[in-house]
């Protein structure tokens, strides 16, 4: 029994090794130019239908074949790649969210690709370029950006005589109107598991969760601007006019589908997800800019967005870089994306491709043709954000602190302080200079 106990208790580490070695089984075999054996690249991605886009590459590049592994999700990409690095079996390329990229750089997983990609600056949306460049070096090829939208049910708003809110005051008023009209209905949910959303909302309010100057980090997770956002939502939650369902749960999907929730603060990538979760609401949605803190302002935030990293573990850095750049910048790849998946490319020329305007999101109201024009405008209004090296820890701490604050009806502002303290402690432990 002694051995049984130790086996199971050490399970976390064992499974890390198992995952890493499974990934290692199919690690790239070196190509041999003399025999004509193709180079095989391993690519980790969670993007829907990514295999169809990779197929386009494989057909036109018989000497460099790419194999996609789609089993790794956006949330656990850092941990999976770290385990793979520990085991010496990194894939050649991987998707990453912009938030997690600094962590991959710090862990020595994302390779410096400045030599191959440094000249592309003019072709890439500035926000995405900044998010993938550190100390003047490129560490990822940007794929898409995530300009934020407020999606709302036009039918519910019209039936109550509501207009789409343009300020947060109007948003709160709409929440009260909807809940007063029917006590089982809400304008929105405040999800404790969506730290990404809260980070975006506090960035819009002016908070800088991380910033860096001359090598010294500042953490502003609990600063005045972020606390203002926390207090605002606490007010709505305490009043009971927004609910606290966690997003992506079956209950949330049901609430989105049956109109229990009349809006969703999300981003440019949301329409296909709305359609998938709530197909019968297709055509009933509208999309507008985020409500503003000051009437007349136009400040936006980005939610999500991802890029492709070449890892330090690859034996075919040149081919991998070539593929990463092709995947996110070539007309062939972007057209394949538009055809098979929803994307708002970081490549500026990609945004002008004729196909993209035709994919007027079916989940939105018919005739909502300027969706991507608005997306481009929002991109320009988006506040720049610096992500710290331990975003995954911050998001996990956020989920715990806000989940607890909601169940115990305690202060959201204190919850933010808890998150801030955890992040500062972790960064100090890692050896960063934090002021």
């Amino acid at each position: 029994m002694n051995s049984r106990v130790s086996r199971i208790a050490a399970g976390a580490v064992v499974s890390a090794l198992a995952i890493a070695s499974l990934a290692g089984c199919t690690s790239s075999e070196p190509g041999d130019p003399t025999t004509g054996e193709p180079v095989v690249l391993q690519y980790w991605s969670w993007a829907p239908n990514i295999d169809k886009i990779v197929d386009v590459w494989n057909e036109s590049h018989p000497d460099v074949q790419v194999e996609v592994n789609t089993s790794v999700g956006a949330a656990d990409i850092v941990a999976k790649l770290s385990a793979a690095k520990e085991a010496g079996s990194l894939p050649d390329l991987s998707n990453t969210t912009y938030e997690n990229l600094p962590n991959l750089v710090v862990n020595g997983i994302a390779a410096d690709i400045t030599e191959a990609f440094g000249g592309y600056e003019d072709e890439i949306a500035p926000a995405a370029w900044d998010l993938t460049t550190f100390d003047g070096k490129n560490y990822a090829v940007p794929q898409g950006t995530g300009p934020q939208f407020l999606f709302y049910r036009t039918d519910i708003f019209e039936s109550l005589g509501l207009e789409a809110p343009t300020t947060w005051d109007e948003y709160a008023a709409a929440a009260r109107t909807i809940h007063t009209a029917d006590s089982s209905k809400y304008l929105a949910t405040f999800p404790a598991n969506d730290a990404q959303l809260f980070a975006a909302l506090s960035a819009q309010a002016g908070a800088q969760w991380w910033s860096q100057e001359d090598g010294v980090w500042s953490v502003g997770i609990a600063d005045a601007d972020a606390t203002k956002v926390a207090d605002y939502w606490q007010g709505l939650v305490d009043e009971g006019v927004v609910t606290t369902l966690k997003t992506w749960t079956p209950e949330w999907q049901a609430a989105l589908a049956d109109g229990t929730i009349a809006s969703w603060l999300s981003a440019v990538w949301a329409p296909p997800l709305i359609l998938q979760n709530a197909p019968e609401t297709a055509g009933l949605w509208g999309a507008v800019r985020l409500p503003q803190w000051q009437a007349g302002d136009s400040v936006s935030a980005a939610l999500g967005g991802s890029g492709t990293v070449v890892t330090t573990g690859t034996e075919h850095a040149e081919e991998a870089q070539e593929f990463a750049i092709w995947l996110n910048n070539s007309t062939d790849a972007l057209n394949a994306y538009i055809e098979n998946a929803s994307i708002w490319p970081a490549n500026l020329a990609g945004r002008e491709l004729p196909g993209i305007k035709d994919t007027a999101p079916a989940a939105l109201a018919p005739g909502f043709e300027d969706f991507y024009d608005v997306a481009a405008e929002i991109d320009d209004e988006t506040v720049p954000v610096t992500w710290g090296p331990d975003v995954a820890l911050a998001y996990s701490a956020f989920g715990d602190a806000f989940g607890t604050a909601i169940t115990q009806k305690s202060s959201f502002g204190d919850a933010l302080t808890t998150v801030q303290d955890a992040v500062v402690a972790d960064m100090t432990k890692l050896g960063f200079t934090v002021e």
Partner: protein
Amino acid sequence: MQKKRSRLRPRVAPWLFLTPAIVLAAGLMFAPLVYTVVLSLQGRKVAASGIGIAADVFVGLDNYVAALTNPALLGSFARMLGYALIAVPVTMGLALVFALLLDNLSTRFTRFSRISIFVPYAVPGVIAALMWGFMYLPGVSPVGELFSLWGWPVPNPLDGGSVFLAVANVSIWGGIGFNMVILYTSLRGLPQEIYDSARLDGCSELQLALRIKLPLILPGVILTGVFTVIGALQVFSEPNMMMSLTNSITSDWVPMMLVYRDAFVTNDLYGASATAIIITAVTMIASLGLLRVLRDRAFGSES
């Protein structure tokens, strides 16, 4: 010649038989354990300023100190204890009751009941948690629909203190069958003559169960009890699955979730290794201690 062979055989043969087990044990248990200890003595440090690249460094017992002084670990053990106080007695009690009842019923009925009680054990923990999660969530629960049909407020078992019951219920549901089968098998192994003589002495069926059957299958009860306790100490998949459904379960709700989060969510493999070693030690001490106490009580004369 013949003499030599017969002398060699007893020396080599046992080792030959043992080798596969030793190799498996070394590879699957001791190697990971040693590797975990090695990991737990390391950490990551960024040398350069700014973004920098972290390197592995030896940190000695720092990770252990950090884990032991982390109030979250103590909190997770406390919640695990709360969960265990519900899950262990109910699982064991119901398994015993079902085993004793089945032992008393007619054969055809027994087979059907035994299978239907055992079937949940075949459902993987994560699937079971997902399934029960659906039934708990007020928004999608079929039970909730009945409640609202009658105009009653829909309960949310995952909210507040009842979350312990909700999580325990899943593992109880899955665990009863396994324990029941072991106990039932022990019961079937008992000689019928004992029952006959007891009945001749005027023993009722209830007395028979409590005074004759139960003491005779005590070793089986202890075995399944210890397994159930160890299972409770290592509870993971049910609360981890339900964490995504409710605000009441945090990522450090029970010790194994804390380890999982540190290793696979927030990317601190080294701290997670230290915590895992601590949990291993606690589990071993608890189960060996429990076994000793039970053995002394149950077979005081034997040991």
